[in-house]
């Protein structure tokens, strides 16, 4: 009997311990952030989502941020207005 070893990380804990943010209990009256990857179709996709959220949940304002580099995580400077002003943020990629 020979054991062949698992090459994946499925059984391995990742380094990060960041918990998921609590979900907002209601969106009515909330300010919503849109974080796009910065490619041509990222923000148009999010705008459609914001439109639907506006129709269904009476959100009061939308804050828009587009990354200048789609390949890297959002920077602190880019995230700042979302952190300071928004109850929830929707992010998406659009190529």
């Amino acid at each position, binding site marked *: 009997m020979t*054991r*062949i*070893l698992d*090459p994946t*990380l499925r059984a*391995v804990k990742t380094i990060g311990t960041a918990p998921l943010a609590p979900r907002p209990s209601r969106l009515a009256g909330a300010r919503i952030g849109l974080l796009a990857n*910065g490619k*041509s179709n990222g923000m148009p996709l999010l705008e459609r989502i914001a439109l639907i959220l506006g129709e269904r949940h009476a959100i009061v304002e939308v804050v828009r941020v587009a990354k*200048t580099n789609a390949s*890297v995580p959002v920077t602190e400077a880019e995230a700042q207005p979302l952190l300071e002003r928004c109850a929830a943020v929707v992010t998406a990629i659009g190529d």
Partner: protein
Amino acid sequence: MAREPDGIDLDDPWQAIEVCYEQGWTDGLPVVPATEALVERMLASGPWAPDEVLLHEPARDRAVTAFKAAVNAVLAGCRPEYFPVIGAALTAIGDPGFELHGPATSTGGAALMVIVNGPVRRRLGIQSKANLFGPGFRANATIGRALRLVLLNCLECRPGVLDKSTQGWPGKYSLCFAEDEEASPWEPLSVARGFRAGQSTVTVFAAESGHNVLSHGTRSPERLLTLFAETMAGLGSLSPGRSVVVLAPEHAGHLARERWGRTRIQAWLYERAWRSLADLKRAGKVEPAFLTNPRLLEWLYRHHAAGVPFPPPDPGAAECITAEDETVRVHRGLGPDDILLCVGGGEAGGHSAFFPSWSRGRSVPFITKEVPA
């Protein structure tokens, strides 16, 4: 090892290969099932402790230890003595500046190019001469493959799931080769990148598929380099990204005979590898989002002629071609240092290669790391 490693117990070697397929642990080719003894031999030939992290990918927070790298190196068919090169290459693609999440997942379908310099080339038999990008050489075939298997197995870059390559290309199986330092008229690439002569290094790059630069018709450096510049200015791949140019020994010889050095060639190519902004717009290469992105605007108007105002962000201008756009030269890359020159290939033949960076944007830099002894 502190505890028994995760795995599957089997009797039959052929069944083991099939189980690796069933588990999704392959790149489509058969793998060498990784037994504990093989993995221990692989690990023993590198300087890293089993739990040492060789690569941390921050976007998805995945840490690849030397142990997991060794398991994948065994799967790839590597000999244990290749492991220091693999570890150095993983460290290089894990450099924060390399921004691995992009080339690992993008629709652009980047291959991870590994260029090897120094004594380790000969010791491991990494091909730098005839057919160096093609089949026939275990080190070339399996070192790059080990990187790809790490991406597949550890970073979960599965085709169509996290690896969203629209088409990909065969270099994604493995793209590892050595510079032919002996045939090069110039200092080794590693020395040009700041390392000592005699140090072994890997230089990594996220590459689109290569373009053959075919010329048997001239020995003139200017005519030859015109062909390279024309290839590099092809609109299909034109971007602010870097370029890798692998000169065949015959082409390198034509340049050396007239005493052209590396820096002069880089400057010459950068100066001539450009298209007008109007050409880019005519071919639909300017997306509306480019004209609101400061990084891309800086590229498009980097060499704008005197008198042409830097335009205010206006996505509507992407398809509007003005007389001024005919005068704006948009170069490949941002400067001569964005062109990496090295030498490789068979003694016979006027076939060099140009590899564009992956991505329509700036893409990622060249990263060079020393291979540990």
